[in-house]
């Protein structure tokens, strides 16, 4: 088992490296560079950038060097923990991301908890009470959760909250708390703002998981061992929860891996609509303006999250399903 883990770990490193190369190339693909975007932005907001300033910027950021040189310099620094400076923000990349990264993680985590917290019981209920009214209702709701694009949901909710409640919209903090340093009040304010975007984010994933859970549990419930358990006199709750649910948790585990990047990039669209200070909008902005170091680092982070998630999911899978454990050895 140790050899298996070590091998997977090494492969993970290689995967991450490949991701970094691919991301860097794609980011560079569009013609032009950051300085072009910068000039355009300045022009649109009514100010000038002289040709001398433009050339100086290019030299400053090394944009006049060939791509592999730029990549090489970047990756060497990354490995040492220096992620470079964002050209747009003129601050170290980690500072720019850092402010938002843990907010993104918080939002994703909240969405994850909501997803599981809702999907599990609803899925079980739907399977156990198949074809009941509740089952149909939840199925329908679930499908609507899948079918309605989440940006639409976010947009509508943002508008109605403004219309009906005159609520401060856009953002994870109320106006007064934005400026203040962290305090208990600010944490509470954050907690008040998080549920809405988290629920919107979770809706799509919840619906999927409910269906998967329901389908798999239905499969399991028809197995002979369930009949045996019932015949043996176990309570209904133990019959369901102890074995079938655990077996049906398989797809959950294998889904963890891709839940993280899904939530993070899924939140891009919602964050744009709701104006949330998370990584998502930052990524899109940095890609549009070709802010290489910033965009590259964020994409790398997403890659690392995925690979780590896969790794963890394999471990969880092994823990959850004894059959697989034996297979590994």
């Amino acid at each position, binding site marked *: 088992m140790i050899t298996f883990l070590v091998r997977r770990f090494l492969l993970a490193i290689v995967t991450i490296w490949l991701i970094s190369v691919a991301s860097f190339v794609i980011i560079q693909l*569009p*013609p*032009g*560079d*950051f300085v*072009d*975007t*910068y*000039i*355009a*932005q*300045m*022009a*649109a*907001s*009514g*100010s*000038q*950038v*002289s*040709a*001398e*300033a*433009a*050339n*100086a*910027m290019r030299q*400053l950021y090394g944009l006049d060097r060939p791509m592999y040189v730029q990549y090489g310099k970047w990756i060497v620094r990354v490995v040492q923990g220096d992620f470079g400076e964002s050209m*747009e*923000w*003129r*601050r*170290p990349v980690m500072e*720019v991301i850092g*402010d938002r990264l843990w907010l993104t993680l918080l939002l994703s985590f909240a969405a994850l908890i909501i997803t599981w917290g809702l999907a599990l019981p609803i899925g079980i209920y739907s399977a156990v009470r198949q074809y009941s009214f509740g089952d149909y209702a939840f199925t329908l709701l679930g499908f609507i959760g899948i079918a309605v694009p989440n940006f639409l949901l976010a947009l509508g909710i*943002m508008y109605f909250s*403004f219309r009906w409640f*005159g609520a*401060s*919209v*856009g*953002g994870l903090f109320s*106006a007064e708390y*934005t*400026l203040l340093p962290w305090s208990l009040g600010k944490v509470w304010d954050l907690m008040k703002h998080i549920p809405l975007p988290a629920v919107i984010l979770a809706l799509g994933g919840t619906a999927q998981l409910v269906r998967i859970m329901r389908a798999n549990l239905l499969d399991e419930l028809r197995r002979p061992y369930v009949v045996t358990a019932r015949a043996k006199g176990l309570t209904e709750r133990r019959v369901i929860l102890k074995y079938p649910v655990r077996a049906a948790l398989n797809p959950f585990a294998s889904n963890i891996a891709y839940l993280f990047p899904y939530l993070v990039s899924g939140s891009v669209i919602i*964050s*744009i*609509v709701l*104006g*949330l*200070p998370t990584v998502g*909008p930052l990524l899109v*902005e940095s890609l*549009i*303006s*070709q802010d290489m170091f910033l965009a590259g680092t964020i994409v790398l982070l997403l890659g690392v999250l995925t690979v780590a998630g896969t790794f963890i999911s394999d471990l969880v899978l092994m823990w959850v399903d004894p059959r697989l454990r034996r297979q590994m050895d």
Partner: protein
Amino acid sequence: MTTRRQILGYASAFAAVAPTGEALAQAVSATGSNFNQSGLIGTLESATQVSTIPTSFKESPALAELVKQGKLPPVAQRLPSEPLVLKPLNTVGRYGGTWRRGFIGPSDGENGNRINSSDKLLFWDASGSKIVPSVAKGWEMSKDGKTTTLFLRKGMKWRDGAPFNADDFAFWYEDIYSNKDIVPTPIADMSPNGKPGRLVKIDETTVQFQFDVPYFLFLDMLAGDTLIGGGQSVQQSIGNYFGAYSPGHYLKQFLPKYSSEAAVNKLAKDQGFDNWGRLLAFKKDWELNPDVPTLGPWHTVKPINTPTWTMQRNPYYWVVDTEGNQLPYIDNVVMTLAENLEVVNLRAMAGEYDMQERHIDLQKLPLILDNRDRGNYDVHLDLAFHGADTAIHFNLSYVADPEVAKWLKTADFRRALSLGIDRDQLNQTFWLGLGTPGSVVPAESMPQNPGPEWRNRWSTYDPDRANKMLDALGLTKKDSDGYRLRTDNGQRLVIQVEAVAAMMDYPKQMEMVTQQWRKIGIYGDVKQMERGLAFQRLTANQEQLDVWSNGGSELMYLFPREVLPVDPTEAHLGIEIAKWYTSNGTQGTAPTDPELKRALELYRSASGQKEAERNKTAQEIWKIIVEQQYTIGTVGQSPAQFGVRIVSRKLGNIPSRTCIAQHCRTPGVSHPETWYFKA
């Protein structure tokens, strides 16, 4: 030779409304009768300068407290002996309050630059047509136009208390501008006819710009939003090192000249920068570095690359009101980051900003008006002076497709396309009827407008005539859908129009325009793209038609790039021509169009002409541009750019109408330092 007294006497003349201002006011009420029904458009006004200096001075309670604690010298010592005295628009205000505003990211520096634009050497009055003193208290131009002298204010100080005088100009000129490591080539502003000028210290409060050729335009350059005259906030932020003065006492420590290259490089590395160049780039930038001394009413305490860009009052600000109160009245400015424009507008409607004109979308006007009571704000509509919020430029140096290039260079083709646009439709749909349809020339009230008949020349809706003109050009064959065919290979003639979703929704507007062009048989292919890509293509001479605003063209010489291809950074009419112009013929391609050549020659000759003659030259240039339709104008003179002003009802001294123009540094020209919170 005009005397100093005469020039300083201008100050008192500004108490009355300058003649041009009256003309402007009349012009507004004449054309704006439709608009005035809304009650949202006022008359141009703002605080005015007076020459009487108060004998005693007062300051904000917060500063008075610091004086009591011995941390600041008394206010009389902080002010220059000749401060700028402003008569507030309505009443003397009260101190206090925080001005909340919205910004959209670290590229939105203009948001803060403009409210600090009193740090310019010279500025404009409320109508945007008369030059007034600002940092400099007066000026003098020699009869031959080769020398411009500026008089500074004795005893004026930087915001850290250090003296501000001619040494700061000498420092800028010798140690920054002339340092090839920092500024590789002299700027065009300082080099009329390609001959670099000099900046010389005469005495402690007098500096002089010296040129080898007559340069009468220079005064306007100092007052306008140019590299030399724009002021420290905008001209020494980001990649710029201009603005004519710089805080030498602070920046010296970062220059190799005052220690050694090794020493400053080490200093840079210690602070996390690659070399002294990057260290200096950071240290001189008021948006990023809270320590750098500035002159404006507010200075940065929390920099722009954070979610809240925060500014505090300048304790050494050199402007007072007529009762001797040191300005500004408002203590702090706090800008909160909004992820996108929708959020900015939403927050404005929710009343979360105290005064916001930037990023407010004209299309949302009905909704903004609906929410006035709920958000506790008033709305003012300010009309701009440039002719076209949406200007369609022809690339006259295009070469990639010879057939298309031929038509782009044919005057009748351009005129036909212009006649095929129904501007009233555009005006109603995108400007809510608040614009003025017509050509690209500036407003009739502006001195460079060539005459009212040029508003509609080639700029009405006449598809019949357009069809006839296109037929006469030989584009008679059409395909089954009614689109004209190329003359070289018989395929459909496709004209590419590049549109960026920038100041307005240009792609949507072009959708409507190309639909209208169907009726004259022209197939317009709208290419929506990102800004960076669009500007890159501009530089690579790849675009056929591109769309942008011609804001800034209201005073042609101060911002010519929207008028003529004279600046390679943004050359809508052809990058190769711009290169040819700036390199004096050594690079790029000469224009083949004789009228364009004539326009460029007129432009070149203008810097040596006096104002009246210069304006005549500008009128000639506009006539050429409209007659040849190098740029098609659609709708302009509207509130689309910074013209929808949302102002909290708690603020006082707010003008009913303010100048919307590049050189007015909206909202700078309406003196934010005189605004105050009523309660």
